[in-house]
């Protein structure tokens, strides 16, 4: 029994040069999905946050409802609704597109909260000073509030991005060709689940840890000065 177990590991290490590129290719897709979803989330999230400040109560109410609702539902469910549900209604998205749409829409809800907190953290006096100079609320927002909110928002956004990276794993369930899916496929071919999944975990770590260190560094730099 013991020799069997070691045999598996020996096979694994022998075939490593074959396994690693497959996983790395998946990792590349993971990064692509993360990046694209992040962009969608940040832009849409900012829009949502500004909408919540809108004069028209219907708009701000809708924006709030969107944010609250989307964050009360698992990623998997939202993903399935977009991938399978839309297909049923005739809109056939590729798993890649569905992934970005789902993660992007969901991300927008989180980013909206981050943006909102950022905007609200800017002292009220700033806005008043801007208004008393004769700026319209829009001008005040654009040149005084948002530039300051931008810096406050960066650390939580960086943290969110790291979370997003891990969430891309969920899209493996709709066969998007990212890292975990590549690992799953490899496991079904090689029957070496522990080894392959551990390797996949390692690849995730090699992506997320440096990002986390970078995020922490940025946070420290921003809070200190400059």
């Amino acid at each position, binding site marked *: 029994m013991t020799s069997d177990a070691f045999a598996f590991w020996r096979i694994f290490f022998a075939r490593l040069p074959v396994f690693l590129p497959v996983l790395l290719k998946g990792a590349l897709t993971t990064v692509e999905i993360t990046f694209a979803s992040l962009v969608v989330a940040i832009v849409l999230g900012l829009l949502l946050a500004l909408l919540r400040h809108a004069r028209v109560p219907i708009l701000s109410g809708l924006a709030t409802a969107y944010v609250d609702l989307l964050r009360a539902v698992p990623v998997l469910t939202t993903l399935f609704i977009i991938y399978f549900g839309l297909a049923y209604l005739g809109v056939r998205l590729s798993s890649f597109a569905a992934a970005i749409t789902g993660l992007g829409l969901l991300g927008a809800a989180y980013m909206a909260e981050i943006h909102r907190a950022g905007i609200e953290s800017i002292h009220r006096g700033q806005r008043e000073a801007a208004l008393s*100079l*004769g*700026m319209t609320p829009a001008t005040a927002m654009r*040149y*005084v509030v948002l530039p300051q909110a931008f810096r406050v928002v960066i650390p939580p956004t960086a943290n969110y991005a790291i979370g997003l990276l891990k969430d891309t794993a969920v899209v493996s369930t709709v066969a998007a060709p990212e890292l975990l899916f590549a690992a799953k496929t490899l496991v079904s071919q090689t029957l070496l689940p522990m080894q392959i999944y551990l390797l996949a975990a390692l690849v995730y770590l090699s992506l997320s840890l440096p990002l986390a260190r970078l995020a922490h560094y940025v946070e420290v730099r921003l809070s200190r000065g400059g």
Partner: protein
Amino acid sequence: MPPKLRIVDLHKRYGHLEVLKGINLEVQWGEKVVLIGPSGAGKSTLLRCINFLEKPSAGHIYLDGELIGERPANGGYAHLGERELAVTRARIGMVFQRFNLFPHLSALENVAIGPYRVLSKTKAESERIAAALIEKVGLGAKANAFPERLSGGQQQRVAIARALAMQPSLMLFDEPTSALDPELIGEVLQVIRQLAAEGMTMLIVTHEVNFAEDVADRVLFVDDGVIVEEGSPQAILRSPQHTRTRSFLRAVLER
């Protein structure tokens, strides 16, 4: 010639709490009016109503004879929208207790942003105006410094320059020195004195009684949302008539 500022029966309510209970006031061109009174009396609220950072609950305000902040509608009056209010606010300068300088801009940029983004002057022109004003308040050497590197007194002087850059015809000062360390108060008061000497119409809320005596043409004692007593600085500060005025001054001067 109409008065610079005319306030008619101004009321301001927050829910059930009435902070301003019928203020009537006229300020002439070039006049310096100082408001004194206990905290919570409504002095700051009055100033903030004049440039419509707060919307009055009742009453009217006239700048240079024209009604500001509202338009007649439906047999009554309706408040103007923010974009229209912005135009009025550009004519009135406000200096805040907590300076409210924009931390992401240098001193020069703080002063230049009004002309640049509101009056739509060119960047070069705006910076020229700003440089001149910063020089005028005595901070030429610090033009490129950021607010966090400036002392409170320096920040407040930049804030005054910033308001002046809009070339307002009326300046509102909301306790301009209350947030400053004692040794920094003098430099700010000096700038305000200079401005007063140049003929600017001003409304100043302050606790600095000696300064009030120096600069003011008229002193108003405000308590509990009404103007209790008003008159020349000598009259109010040396021989107040009203008991409330007297007890307030006694408490303040005991400092």
